[in-house]
């Protein structure tokens, strides 16, 4: 079960920036955006689908920009992924309040993504906790430690969620 206590403000993500780098607020925000925009957009697509990912992307980086330069803002990859994850969770919640069927799979809008459709659908049908862990680990390329920071759980729990998600996917694929 996904820990659903995480409507955290960006400033609460606690992963320290790599040593030797300038304090995040003193780094041009654009450099941070350029570094993380691809993984953030990819992860959000895996969570909310291509259409809504653009909105969540905007909200994610607006929240990061608001926090930029505040004493406790972070600027790390795990930090921005934590914000992105929270935006995706918020998005699902607001979806759930609407009278639409809430279990629909992410829409994959772009034509050229078709060969991936099946895998998208399978990832989309994973339980929430596994789905976000798998998305953060593989689509966004985070380490298990960073997945833990982004999801607000321990590294061990993150590793377990990723492994459980993978084995469920593998099982599905074998069963056809």
């Amino acid at each position, binding site marked *: 079960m996904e820990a659903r206590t995480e409507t955290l403000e960006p400033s609460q993500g606690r992963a320290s920036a790599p040593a030797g780098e300038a304090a995040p607020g003193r780094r041009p925000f654009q450099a941070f955006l350029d570094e993380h925009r691809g993984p953030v957009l990819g992860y959000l697509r895996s969570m909310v689908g291509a259409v809504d990912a653009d909105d969540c992307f905007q909200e994610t980086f607006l929240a990061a920009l608001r926090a930029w330069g505040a004493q406790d803002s972070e600027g790390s990859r795990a930090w921005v992924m934590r914000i992105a994850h929270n935006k995706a969770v918020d998005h699902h919640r607001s979806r759930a309040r609407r009278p639409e069927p809430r279990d629909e799979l992410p829409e994959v809008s772009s034509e050229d993504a078709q060969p991936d459709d099946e*895998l998208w659908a399978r990832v989309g049908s994973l339980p929430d906790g596994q789905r976000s862990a798998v998305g953060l680990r*593989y*689509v966004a390329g985070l380490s298990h430690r960073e997945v833990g920071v982004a999801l607000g759980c321990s590294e061990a729990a993150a590793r377990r969620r990723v492994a459980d998600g*993978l084995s469920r996917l593998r099982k599905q694929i074998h069963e056809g």
Partner: protein
Amino acid sequence: MQTLSRTKDEDLETALEALGVPSADEADRAAQAFAVAADRAGLVDVAYGRLDTPMGELTLAATEQGVVEVALPNRDPDEVLATLATRISGRVVRLAKRIDPARRELDEYFAGTRREFDLELDWRLAKGGFYGQVLRRISEVPYGSTLSYGELAGRAGNRRAHRAAGTACGSNPIPILVPCHRILQSGGGTGNYGGGPEMKRRLLRLEGVLD
């Protein structure tokens, strides 16, 4: 097909890694839409953009008050942005909209169709005191004419401070728009320039001062 071979695991992991990776174009579009939204939310303290000119690529930066820096082609753009972040604010975002007026006027200037700039300037990166006085006097030197460092110093209130006038020109954060290239040595030599002496000569040629 039935065994969970090692290769198969890696295949799945590779397929997952490839999943959802946006193209450079898609990521670019998302980033641009974000920049517009950030501007609307009043969160962009420093907007910047690049401009190709016949003399190389300029980096232009503007706050909400106006153009705050024109970085000449010999400057490293990453370093320019890092300095802006340190001196003004880390909220530095690439945003065409705020840079466009300067881009347009500079394009016209380099094409020879504009002789005066009509842009708001933000002087916050300029030195203060006498240097600041000197810098503000530079804008009074019209297109196609020149002044010596000593004459400029005199206009700022101290005829003998020609060295200080040179220092002020060298520290000009908004060159071209604040045309320090029009300030020459009293003997007629072109003197130093932030973008290098050759660029200074080219600007003077563009304005018809040099052949």
